């Protein structure tokens, strides 16, 4: 397929590489739908990755490691939420400062654990593994994080589209004053969304240090992923399925970079390592241009056109980034 990579291998690697990013981007989607931008993503991913690795190493338990990652994420969520929702500080400033703080804190606290072996989540065999053809065997031997990511896409999509709590959360992101007038508590809903989202981001971080890029060090390998996650949420139009597809696209670009490196040994390897980032931006810009027309379609009276429009329509929640102050 690409270089040494066969098609099943390519698919398997893309799935594995996209899982943590999907979880991270979904976490951010959850927070942003409620109107809060959690800009601390990039630092939090590293901080959670560090915490997860350290705890997993000390206790020799993967489960505790993942939990530690989630809790580390949630801890930063408490800070972002308290400062921006209750103290009405700028969400951008709080998130940005926290991002830098978390990154440096992770390198500092994780230093003693650099470059050592620790527990790693290996790909698990499915129960009916032996009855599968070999190409499917390759594709489907995945660590649990992959299945978790796919499950989360479905759960969060269902949550936003069909559940009452999801509707309440979206309403707060659109117009917190009106939600308040209808008897909801916008601050509480936003806080819960930020905490839940930050927990997912933490789990995503743990998935890097315990599964995809096992171990801790500087650099760990998850640097820059938080920013990509933030961009994915925007270009994915705050729609969990499109966000997940964007994450998969990014993983594909990363993986094929590795394959291309073997094909073109003359080109410096840094080109292939960094290429996914600008390529991602170009792809997403391209996708973005299709949205203005689809918005019109989204309002069309034809059912089919409306569906097509909804698929590509993207609009930020109206109250995104604004702190709501009760009168």
């Amino acid at each position, binding site marked *: 397929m690409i270089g040494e990579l066969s098609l099943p291998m390519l698919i398997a690697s893309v799935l594995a590489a996209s899982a943590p990013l999907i979880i991270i981007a979904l976490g951010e989607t959850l927070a942003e739908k409620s109107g809060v931008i959690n800009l601390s993503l990039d630092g939090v991913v590293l901080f959670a990755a560090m915490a997860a690795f350290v705890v997993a190493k000390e206790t020799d338990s993967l489960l505790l490691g993942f939990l530690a990652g989630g809790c580390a994420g949630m801890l930063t969520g408490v800070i972002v939420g308290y400062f921006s929702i209750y103290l009405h500080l700028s969400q951008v400033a709080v998130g940005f400062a926290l991002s830098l703080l978390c990154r440096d804190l992770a390198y500092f606290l994780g230093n003693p654990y650099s470059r050592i072996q620790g527990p790693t989540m290996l790909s698990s065999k499915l129960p009916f593994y032996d009855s599968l053809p070999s190409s499917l065997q390759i594709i489907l031997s995945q660590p649990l994080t992959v299945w978790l990511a796919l499950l989360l896409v479905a759960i969060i999509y269902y949550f936003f589209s069909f559940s009452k709590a999801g*509707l309440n959360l*979206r309403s707060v992101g659109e117009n917190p004053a009106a939600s308040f007038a209808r008897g909801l508590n916008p601050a509480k809903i936003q806080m819960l969304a930020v905490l839940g989202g930050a927990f997912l981001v933490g789990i995503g971080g743990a998935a890097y240090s315990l599964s995809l890029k096992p171990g801790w060090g500087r650099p760990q390998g998850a640097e820059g992923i938080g920013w990509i996650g933030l961009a994915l949420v925007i270009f994915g139009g705050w729609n969990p399925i499109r966000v997940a597809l964007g994450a998969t696209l990014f993983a594909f670009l990363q993986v094929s970079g590795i394959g291309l490196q073997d094909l073109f040994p003359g080109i410096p390897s840094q080109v292939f390592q960094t290429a996914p980032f600008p390529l991602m931006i170009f792809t997403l810009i391209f996708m973005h241009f299709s949205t203005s027309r689809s918005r019109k379609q989204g309002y069309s009276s034809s059912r089919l056109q409306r569906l097509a429009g909804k698929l590509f329509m993207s609009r930020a929640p109206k109250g995104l980034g604004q702190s709501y102050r009760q009168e």
Partner: protein
Amino acid sequence: MDVEFQHISKNFGQVQALTDVSLTARSSTIHGLIGENGAGKSTLMKILTGYQSKSSGSILLDGVEAQLNNPSQASNLGIGMLYQEPMDFPPLTVLENFSLGTPRQSRQELHFALKTLSIRFGFDLDPDLPVELLTVGERQQIELLRLIHCNIKVLILDEPTTGISPAQKEALFPALKQLAADGLTILLVSHKLEEVANLCSEVTVLRHGKLTHHTAAPFHFPKLLTAMFGFVPKRKDKGSARDKGSPILICKNIEASGERQGLHQCDITVAEGEIIGLAGLDGAGQSTFLRLAAGLISPDQGKVTLFNNSLPHGAKAYIRAQELHTSFIPADRLEESLFAGISLRDHFSLREEHGMFWQSRTRTRQRTEEAITTFSIKGTPEDLAEDLSGGNQQRLLLSLLNRNSRLILLENPTRGLDIQSGQWIWQHLRDELSPDTAIIFSSPELDEILHYSDRIIVFHDGNIVLDSAVADTSHGAIAAAMTGMREGTP
């Protein structure tokens, strides 16, 4: 449920919004609450819904003191409010808006409830449409149905007819009477006396946060007006029709899109000195026409000619129109024409044409102070535009208007203003501008059009259905044209 306000006071910092207000609204009645802008009506109602807190006093529901610290407590007690600006979620669908804040129910049940209620009140609502595509009146209908679905016992309406069409008003009023007959307590906040007289059995008047008058039907208008304003505002006699000059705005065979129906086969010629009122239902094409003349939108077909220059297509049109001394003031003051978070003085600096980099603070300050005096704006040069009341924002806009304007386009110029502020605006427009300036304005108030304009143009579904001198047209003919009945059209 009887609602009893006892000695309610409310202050925002130094400002006393309500002082010792006591009143009782009984069940099965519609109780009117009237007063000028800023009299404290909305504040009193927001206290009842728990949206704002009171500084002192108590509220009794059926004789029992109620704790109303947030809207959730109020809605549990059966108090619901229809806010003046729709408190809803524009990107969400009608059904989603309907279901937010209602008790937990399945989608099918909600869908069914919405349908039955729409039929009962004669509203036509598509559950799957996003609310941002609907008119203000339709958004209000959803909210009203939602409140009824929540089994409220007290319904508060804050200026319910502000943005809605006469037809929607015709649907709303019987619905309200029906609800009162069913046992609801309805509190109607308004500054339109005719509506209050039409609907209410009791009226309380607030002025500067104090209760000045309370009476049951039948109402004596002069008394109510005295209680509202302290004196009876006299409608100035209609100014004499102005002389018409040469044509300045010519629209020929215009087809344009905008609002609900766009604009079709639009032929209008406007001459110097004319004052033209645009009437029609909410969204029938008036706003599209005003924006077309202002160069903000370009026609799909046809040509707009301003002062013998045809307007270019696209973004240049607006700049060209301004060069040709055309000014446009949209209805949405804070969103489209003023900068909410910028001070009055800076609004004047922004208008300065000279000096790209440096600005003279003393000069703009002086100009601002002059404008504040001439236009009697209640505010200081350092106040932010959003801190002004609606009337003062409109005065600020007028003071910023280019003095050399020869065509002024106004979209609902007295929106949300009390009678006095409205009269002041019109007096200024007629007296201060040179008599050959043409004014085109739209208004949902037929009275305003009949009173101030020389010529009336009626829009219906994007078509011009009536265009004649006001003196030659009867009230009935205009109302018929607005609702699409073609009789009486010349």
